[in-house]
């Protein structure tokens, strides 16, 4: 059956799972998912280019990395969205976050949430990626501080950490 949602006073009432918890949101008509997330306090999702080129606004939608600046917020209705806040925080960092810090892959940090989410997607489907596969996965995440050597090392270190964790 066709599902249709009408806005009332330019507001859509939508529901989606955000970082594991189902929540209701009010999305503006024409508002992007990036704008909604940041308005709701999920500032780890960065606004970089706003044209789909830099990867700073990456979130996981149903486990796949996507650009929240290129999606209408209403498109998230009924889906599962994971932001960097859903991966881990200072008190309980994810092994990928630990690996990025330990590998010296974080400089200004602006691009890192996107890179960590893409790494999560990669390692969930491919626990032992090659350098080429890592570079391919990160090909949409631009970093203006560094080259990409440290980030590739960080992903390999994250793969080791996650593999050790899985064996325990």
């Amino acid at each position, binding site marked *: *059956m*066709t*599902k*249709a*949602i*009408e*806005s009332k006073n*330019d507001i*859509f009432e939508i529901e989606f799972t955000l970082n594991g918890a189902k929540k209701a949101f009010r999305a503006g*008509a*024409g*508002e*992007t998912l990036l704008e909604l997330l940041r308005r709701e306090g999920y500032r780890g999702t960065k606004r970089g280019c706003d*044209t*789909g080129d830099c*990867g700073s606004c*990456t979130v996981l939608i149903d486990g*796949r*990395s*996507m*650009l929240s600046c*290129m*999606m*209408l917020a*209403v*498109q998230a*209705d009924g889906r599962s969205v994971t932001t960097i806040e859903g991966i881990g925080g200072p008190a309980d960092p994810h092994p990928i976050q630990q690996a990025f810090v330990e590998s010296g892959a974080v400089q200004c940090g602006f691009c890192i949430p996107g890179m960590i989410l*893409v790494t999560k997607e990669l390692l969930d489907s491919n626990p032992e990626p090659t350098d080429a596969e890592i570079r*391919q*996965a*990160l*090909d*949409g*995440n631009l970093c203006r501080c560094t080259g990409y050597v440290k980030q590739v090392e960080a992903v390999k270190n994250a793969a080791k950490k996650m593999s050790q964790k899985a064996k325990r």
Partner: protein
Amino acid sequence: MNKINTYIRPESAKAAAAALADCKGKAVLLAGGIQIVKTMPPGVTAVVDLRDARLSYIKKEAACLKIGAGTTFSEMVASPVIKKWAGGMMHKAALRVSSNMIRNMATVGGSIVRPYPFNHFPAVLYALDAKAVIVLKGKTSKVAIAEIFEKELGSELGRTAVLSEIQIPAGTEKWNGVFDRVAKTESSWENIMICAAAAEIKGGVCKNIRLALGSALPKPVRLLKAEKSLSGKKITDILASQAGDIGAGEAGSFNSVSAPSEYKRQIAPAVIKRCVLAVS
């Protein structure tokens, strides 16, 4: 950004076409959304999202390979069938689409319905003699992919008509295929020129060949005269050079998107020659 007041998720291509008709020109189709979200046409107040329309599939059948228009480039990259079909030219073209996130979102149908010059698949599907399945006013029809680019049909897609499927003739499965592109950097999405070639080679002789250029012209173009110069012959370096010159000549006026048209005119013979040699 337009104010979108109605968001519709139909469960089939026919229901999507009906929703477009109900909205009387004020709705637009959304598949991956890469282009439409940032370039919403004026006056549009409704979005018809195809995500529930079951258009994401790759099926190999006796007569053809069927690719749902909602299939993302990531899904194409992961498909073992796509990896092998016509020398893997569709796999390579999908893999080189922009970035990981864009490949997760953008669809093969979107790249045809909104054929921006830098899209890979208009030229690729031209070379593979693809057909498009279209739903318009409750009726389903099948047209050559060329009709979308060469006739007015293209402007109907996404506003009144729905592209539901791409069909690639089974005969092209064992053909040689090449996808090549010129861009400023390996990862740049802003292609300067794309060339796609598919050929049936038997005993070293070119029995059939289809060549198409993209990114260099306002629309993708098939190089019929260059194909004719190669058909039925054993492809040599000299013949490939001649085909390059013929193809560049028949292509017409190059656009200046992402590089000056004069530069494109100069590189076209070499790009075509390279593809012809690779496909043989």
